[in-house]
């Protein structure tokens, strides 16, 4: 299944590794902050209700 990358295996795999890691980290951080801000806003709005 794994393609034959020859002498450039480290070059190709490190490019894919770094890029996928950065994209996954960006997505995970965006989702985490979205959930945190939504929770905090709900708490502030709940405090305002009589």
């Amino acid at each position, binding site marked *: 299944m794994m393609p034959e990358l020859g002498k450039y295996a480290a070059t190709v795999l490190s490019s894919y590794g770094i890029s996928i890691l*950065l994209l996954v980290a960006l997505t995970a951080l965006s989702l985490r902050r*979205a959930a945190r801000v939504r929770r905090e806003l709900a708490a502030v709005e709940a405090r305002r209700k009589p």
Partner: protein
Amino acid sequence: MSSLWEYANPKKFIETAQRVLPWVAGLSVICLVGGLAWGFFFTPDDYRQGSTVKIIYLHVPAALMAINAWLMMLLASLVWLIRRHHVSALAARAAAPVGAVMTVIALATGAIWGQPMWGTWWVWDPRLTSFLILFLFYLGYIALWAAVEDDDTAADLTSILCMVGSVFALLSRYAVNFWNQGLHQGASVMRAGALAGDTQERVSNVFAVPLFVCIAGFVLLFVALVLLRTQTEIRARRMRALMARERMG
């Protein structure tokens, strides 16, 4: 017919974004996983570059999005400056970290690819240099938003910075055409006749088709992340306003 300006209403924007986001995110995952798997596993090596040609599926879409993210921020900043719609300023703010990550991917994969092909990780070539300056503009833009407490003032200042940085966003795309020097090659994908007829130094269809799938994946991922992050910025702004009201009693 509904007007585009309806989405300047934060509530309307959030409602629409929530409806659209799952579809855009799902499509982006399909295109990214499909395009990258196709490129990595099912395309041949290039006769000159060997297996390093597989880096094209990350480097080109990331570079394209690094520039286009800044241009999207420019448009949103202009809308803020002219029409004072908060959602557009917050959309520009939301897009900046996504564009910065795309720039890092383009720079990192470019350096890793350049080492075996050019014999160097880095060279002060017009395109590479303008790309590095674009990255510094991204950092400055993000830092400026974080440094200014008043949201409207921050939006004004970052919009001006965005306009200045647009020069480097455009330069990083067209620098190879202005200066006939440097190691980076000219356009060979997004070029008239690149897919048909013109056979001189164009990217072969074997590589171009999965590359276009990856580009679609990166564009959709950018849209999905900006929709998600803009909602977050709108909520964070509302939270700051409510807390300020609480403090004032």
